[in-house]
């Protein structure tokens, strides 16, 4: 009688990829419509949270996942800094976060210079951070109670 039962497990296998894809959609269209990196990242992280809630967390496996997510989070922050520094170097105007890529036509998917790339990096960062927070709450709660 413990756990979530077969219905939630089976349906979460179908719903979780859809949620993840919708998060990617929100991130990629961040410069065209409301949303963007943070909102999409939260939606993507909620797909992982659904998986953990449905299947139950096996602690060693979760610790393993937590290391990977921490790596992803750090890499995203590094990429963000590199992107900002490139703007400083390449654009020639000595502005941090200068938009140095061609801006294209307003309203198309590939436009607005480096804002889509920055959105993707922010999305990775937020997704990894929120999943890490959730896993940490699950793991550390057990350690504290012991």
């Amino acid at each position, binding site marked *: *009688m*413990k*756990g*979530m039962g077969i219905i*939630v497990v089976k349906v979460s296998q179908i*719903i979780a990829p859809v*949620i993840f894809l*919708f998060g990617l959609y*929100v991130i990629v269209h961040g410069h065209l*419509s*409301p*949303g963007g990196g943070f*909102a999409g990242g939260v*939606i993507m992280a*909620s797909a992982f*949270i*659904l998986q*953990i*809630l*449905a299947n*139950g*967390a*096996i*602690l060693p496996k*979760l610790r393993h996942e937590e290391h990977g997510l921490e790596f992803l989070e750090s890499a995203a922050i590094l990429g963000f800094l590199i992107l900002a520094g490139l703007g400083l170097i390449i654009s020639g105007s000595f502005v941090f976060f200068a938009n140095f890529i061609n801006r294209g036509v307003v309203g198309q998917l590939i436009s607005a210079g480096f804002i889509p790339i920055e959105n993707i990096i922010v999305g990775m960062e937020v997704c990894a951070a929120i999943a890490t927070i959730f896993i940490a*709450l*699950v793991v550390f*709660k*057990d350690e504290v109670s012991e």
Partner: protein
Amino acid sequence: MLDILIYILMGLGFLCFIRVVIGPTMVDRMVAIDIFGILVVGICALLVLKSGRTFLIDVAIAWIMLSFIGTITLAKYLTGKKLDE
């Protein structure tokens, strides 16, 4: 016409809040919150027509998913009170 429907749905959301306030047990409140999440999706869908801002349908889809995960979390708390099972 659309205004009246939107006001009706908002009033129904208020009814849900009445149930949240007076609900005798915890589970009643959870049910009311679940219902409120679905009502908001309907309000978003009507606002698309009212205001002509088409991104509100994205908001509706995101709201469906997040409200689902919130309800599953509450249900998980009811079944075992432990997240790692």
